[in-house]
């Protein structure tokens, strides 16, 4: 199987879906001639032309809103928000419109739009090019939020998102774009939205996380293994609505749970994960549910020492995993 990067998996999924279904089209800022500021849509303009790879005016609410209109008509738009931080002007269209179209019309209309956006820190992006924004949407029924960690998952889940009949927010970790590589089948496949994935089987502690932190946890698990500590790692993949069964199973398995997110701690995805565990498998726990997260400050600063202070990294993850194992 070819080894490709996380961002190549994005491009591959887009290209294949556009080839497969003429109703799939891409719209966003700089996605056309430029191929996206991260080059996620590289080559699509050349292959599919400007009618299906649309450089929009600089206006996120219109990108979402026009996409929603096209989706109601029967298209499968894939809208790009240049950075997840810039999804904010589109919140009304996403929360008031996309999420509620099926419900409010009593199933008469539906809205198969995918909204892609690079999120996450560690790239000297400062306050507004580093944020994790998933928690803002993770209380809105009608939406699905996918945040893959590997190229394999990217391809399978992005294809599933595009084919999904409901709106999907698809957040890609921008630091993973070129850093993370992995085997990806050339053939067509999809992965189920709404299902978490065990990335490592283990017996002593359970780590539940998503995105780039999955890799930090896997690295740390290797080290811990040498000291006889076996870590079970669950990758949420879909962070809303959560895969409750998988969470309950993973937490119950070891009774010691560490939840990791790069987002600010209070009100993060991990709050809901903790709530699910404490509602369903409290008596299986041998330790308090521990959360490792960004500090509760607005966002990652630009200066390298402060950015490092904020950002989750392999050392912080390893330390937290050891502490939990020793509890």
């Amino acid at each position, binding site marked *: 199987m070819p080894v490709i990067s996380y961002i190549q998996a994005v491009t591959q999924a887009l290209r294949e879906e556009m080839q497969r279904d003429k109703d799939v*089209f891409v719209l966003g800022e700089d996605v056309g001639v430029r191929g996206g500021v991260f080059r996620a849509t590289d080559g699509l303009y050349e292959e599919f032309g400007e*009618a*299906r790879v*649309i450089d*929009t*005016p600089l*206006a996120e*609410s*219109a990108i*979402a*809103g*026009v*996409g*929603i*209109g*096209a*989706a*109601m*008509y*029967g*298209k499968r*738009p894939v809208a790009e928000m240049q950075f997840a931080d810039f999804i904010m*002007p589109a919140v*009304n*269209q996403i929360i*008031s*419109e996309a999420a*509620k*179209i*099926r*419900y*409010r*019309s*009593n*199933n*008469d*209309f*539906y809205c198969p739009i995918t909204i892609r956006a690079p999120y996450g820190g560690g790239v000297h992006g400062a306050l507004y090019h580093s944020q994790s924004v998933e928690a803002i949407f993770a209380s809105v*029924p*009608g939406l*699905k939020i996918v945040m893959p960690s590997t190229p394999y998952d990217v391809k399978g889940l992005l294809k599933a998102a595009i084919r*999904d*009949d*409901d709106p999907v927010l698809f957040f890609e970790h921008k630091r993973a774009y070129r850093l993370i590589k992995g085997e990806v089948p050339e053939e067509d496949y999809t992965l189920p939205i709404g299902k978490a994935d065990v990335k490592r089987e283990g017996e002593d502690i359970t780590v539940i996380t998503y995105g780039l932190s999955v890799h930090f946890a896997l690295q740390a698990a290797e080290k811990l293994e040498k000291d006889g500590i076996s870590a079970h790692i669950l990758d949420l993949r879909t962070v809303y609505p959560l895969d409750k069964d998988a969470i309950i199973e993973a937490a119950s398995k070891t009774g010691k749970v560490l939840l990791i997110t790069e987002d600010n701690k209070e009100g993060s995805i991990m709050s809901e994960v903790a709530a699910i565990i404490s509602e369903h498998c409290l008596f299986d726990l041998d330790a308090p549910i521990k959360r490792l997260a960004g500090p509760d400050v607005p966002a990652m600063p630009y200066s390298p020492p402060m950015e490092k202070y904020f950002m989750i990294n392999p050392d912080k993850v390893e330390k937290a995993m050891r502490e939990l194992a020793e509890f």
Partner: protein
Amino acid sequence: MAEKRHEKLGLSDQDVLDMFETMLLARKIDERMWLLNRAGKIPFVISCQGQEAAQIGAAFALDREKDWVAPYYRDLGIVLAFGMTAKDIMLSGFAKAEDPNSGGRQMPGHFGQRENRILTGSSPVTTQVPHAVGVALAGKMDGEDIVTYASFGEGSSNQGDFHEAANFAGVHKLPVILMCENNKYAISVPVSKQLACEKVSDRAIGYGMPGYTVDGNDPLAVYEVCKEAADRGRRGEGPTLVETVSYRLTPHSSDDDDRAYRSREEVEEAKKKDSIITFAAYLKENGVMSDEKEQEIQERIKKLVDEATEYAENADYAAPESAMNYVYGE
């Protein structure tokens, strides 16, 4: 005998009679809703009264077999012209399961019906404008000959979504009619506190499209500009902004008391221009509608509204637990 106004526009006597009848149907359904509300039978009404001429003028300028509309909450005239029935509307007023708009999930005035190409709408104003642009974009991609219509109030034309959608439509030369139904108030706020421009249509040039301001009490004037706008759209020349000026004859909604912010004289003055009266007069003056014909239409409509009310009142609510359905596709 000189050619009549509607004939000059290519409208037959039957066309204008149909227009009148649809205007009147909208008015009568609306009036009935208020009665039902005041009798405590339905919790809420929001009216089209005063805007029927604008709506019907626009609807008849569209191809009601294939064009798409993204109406706003006052557009009862639009949705009736696009195929919704009095019964459908009453089912929505009573929030019953058979309501085609939402199965009783949304308040009245939140229209939507795929079958008739009426996009589902919400309460936050102006969100429907980019949707109409998106449908036009999709239609263009597919090479379909469709025009889309989105309407909104003059207050709502201050929302960012209006600006962003209008610009998108302008840049991509999409066949969209953006229709601002200027009824002089946004709830209690008069147009002078909403807008600094003289006319909402002054905004068109900023999006590279033509803008027209027309008398919203004159269905033929509205028809004329909307027809031209639809034709432009079909010719691939892009969107048009149409402003129809009329007056909101009722309070904002059944929850409002407009005596707090506007004089009774002002409202009475506006009623003199009520299109239901002035258009009937036009039809009579031009020998299109006799008194008997009018009587016949009135009776037909009364019967329709009575039957619709009765049916809707006796219809079932959706089951409580059906509130769990249709969050996602099944």
